[in-house]
């Protein structure tokens, strides 16, 4: 990108340049919708076919961590919106502050995601040869991070479910394929977003943004909100399949 408010050679006016940038970002977001749409279709088809396995898989997720992360991301959308507002109204210090907060919340999210992934890895819930959805109920000593009373409920549920469907373990792997595929892609987008925010922060410290020229803050903001919205869909799709009991 460019120095403050400078006009690229191919444009005639700053107005045209700004329109171009935001139209480009909106079109990019359309491609992102199609990109996530593909994996959501795969999720939907498999969930329809193996609802029970998906429900069991969903119940092994930690609702508290997922809920906390949802709150964190909504908070980061708020700080991002404030950053865009600060840039538009020329409050340079506030802009840097809100960018730092957004980055911080992004990293909180990724840290919690790391804790969740590590837990799933330890609980033998990664698709592949060692996948075993009954691992924790059969080896409670290896899963001390789970509460015994919750494990007892789960043991009963899983015993019933496996009795009803002997292929449940295999089909639960499809749930976890969706879980790691969707949240992994989402996390990758978060990492890219964090990189963009660091770049904005550097430009902001250098004082490059002004009420006349803040297009990068604007379009990165669009991207960040999109990534948040994806999570708003992923959270109920993955964590809340069968929590109504």
């Amino acid at each position, binding site marked *: 990108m460019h120095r403050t408010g400078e006009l*690229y*050679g*191919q*444009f*005639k006016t700053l107005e*045209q340049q700004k*329109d*171009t940038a935001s*139209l*480009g970002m909106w*079109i*990019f977001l*359309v*491609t*992102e919708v*199609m*990109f*996530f*749409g*593909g*994996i959501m*279709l*795969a999720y939907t*088809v*498999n969930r329809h*076919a*193996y609802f029970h396995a998906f429900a069991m898989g969903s119940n092994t997720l930690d609702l508290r961590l997922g809920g906390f992360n949802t709150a964190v991301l909504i908070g980061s959308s708020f700080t991002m919106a404030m950053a865009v507002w600060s840039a538009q109204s020329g409050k340079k210090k506030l802009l840097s502050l809100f960018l730092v907060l957004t980055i911080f919340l992004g990293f909180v999210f990724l840290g919690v995601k790391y804790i969740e992934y590590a837990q799933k890895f330890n609980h033998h819930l990664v*698709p*592949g*040869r060692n996948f075993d959805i009954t691992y924790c109920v059969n080896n409670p000593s290896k899963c001390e991070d789970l509460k015994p009373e919750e494990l007892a409920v789960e043991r009963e549920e899983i015993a019933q479910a496996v009795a009803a469907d002997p*292929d449940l373990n*295999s*089909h639960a*792997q*499809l749930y976890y*394929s*969706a879980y*790691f*595929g969707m949240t992994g892609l989402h996390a990758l987008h978060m990492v890219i977003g964090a990189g963009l925010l660091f770049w904005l922060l550097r430009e902001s410290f250098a004082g490059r943004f002004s009420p006349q020229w803040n297009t990068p803050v604007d379009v990165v903001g669009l991207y960040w909100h999109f990534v948040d919205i994806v999570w708003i869909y992923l959270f109920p799709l993955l964590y809340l399949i069968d929590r109504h009991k």
Partner: protein
Amino acid sequence: MSPTSTQTNKPALQMPTKHYLNATYGIRSWLLTTDHKRIALLYLISVTFFFFIGGFFAMMIRLHLLTPAGLLLSADTYNRMFTMHGVAMIFFFLIPSIPAVMGNFLIPLMIGAKDLAFPKINLLSWYVYVVGAAFTLYSMVSGGLDTGWTFYTPLSTVYSNSAVAPAVIGVFIVGFSSILTGLNFLVTIHTMRAPGLTWFRLPLFVWTHYATSVVMILGTPVVAITLALAGMERLFGLGFFNPAMGGDPILFQHLFWFYSHPAVYIMILPAMGVTSELIPTFARKQLFGYHFVAAASMAIAVIGFLIWTHHMFVTGVSTYAALAFSFLTFLVAIPSAVKVFNWVATLYGGSISFDTPMLYAFGFIGLFLIGGLTGLFLGSLGTDIHIHDTYFVVAHFHYIMVGGAVMGYLGGLHFWWPKITGRMYPEWLARISAVILFVGFNLTFFPQFLLGYLGMPRRYHVYPPEFQVYNVMSTAGASILAIGYLLPLLYLTWSAFYGRVAGPNPWPATGLEWQTPSPPPTENFETTPVVTWEPYDFYHRPDLGLDMPVDSSLRPVHGDD
């Protein structure tokens, strides 16, 4: 300007002293350029490289099938040959060919802009292409790929012993190059048009690229995620498409064709755009039904997204779904036919000259017509069961992709070659090559319709002896076709350095790209042009030097005569 005066003016034509090719020198000035014209040339070199790689695989296939027992290759190698032929030709030649080479070069010129909206993203798209190409080439030299270009699961994800992963990664990556190109074109066409250039004054080349870009940005992400999932399935054991884990291979086919059918329109729509430029120019006549041709492009892009299941009629999809998809397949024939009728109607009463680009345009119309009509055979449920997965299908899509897209590509390349290089190609050699190509193409692929109808399945390395005569014809045709492709490679390269200087508008044609010197300066236009004329209007353009109304003694300036 009469032919005589053109003759006397000839020595006056000189290359401009400063243009985009000599503005800066050195390898860095090319590899780090943001000039859309130079990026187009980078793409031209890359896609030509893959065209000849894909062509080599095709020659291996045709040589092997010369005898019923197979001449050259083992069964496994044969599988690798047809797979790598498809991957190289579709993902690395056909899809980027016209958009990334000619679209890149021409869209800013045609709309009177200095560059695309995002010049750096344009360069990025070429680097993404190169990285994807590197992965795919690695797959080709490290054991090859034998799944068919369609990567059907679970063969590709579980059973194949060939280098599937690098190829899938390569195709996944190259998809983003086409997303970036499509995004760039859409934004450019929306925001960068010159004053006076309203939507319905846009050349149809721009309209078809707009439609193509819509398909690129909506379809490509879907195949990207699909291949990403298939790749993760092969590498990490995800299970969406693996029936052993309860996954669904048919889901893969749906997702794959959701992109790969519209991808056919990524290949053919730009070629239709080229044809829509060539026909009015060499018939000296305004295009018949401009608005309908523009609307038909958009209709093809939209309906093209709703017909993917016609690739899957025999997979056990519901009969009702198949009926709907069959109906929609017939529906897409309507806008395609609208275009053909409009091109032909343009010719009526025109002052037609048979320059090389026009020969390619004629080739395009005829071959696209055959390819399109045989598509209807395949789109109807009953006949499809008889001829699916036979050489009939192979012949059908080669008539569209080679007879249509490649003819359009070569026609456009000849037409805009003087704009790209500032020099003319040797006209008679080019005409002869065009005829050789047309003959070779038909001899290669028409017998395959008969073979398929008689029941020879595709993708087999042996066949019953009674099919030999058609296979020999097809192989003979392929050899002629190869000559038809090598000739332009040689004479176009030669003419880029030694051809006669063309001047800004050698044909003459009406588009904005001809209002600037050939080759154009880096910033395209000295001053931003203002458009006051309707598209393809020869009558109100005294600047073209034509003495309209049409006088048959007025012929375009030819290459060498």
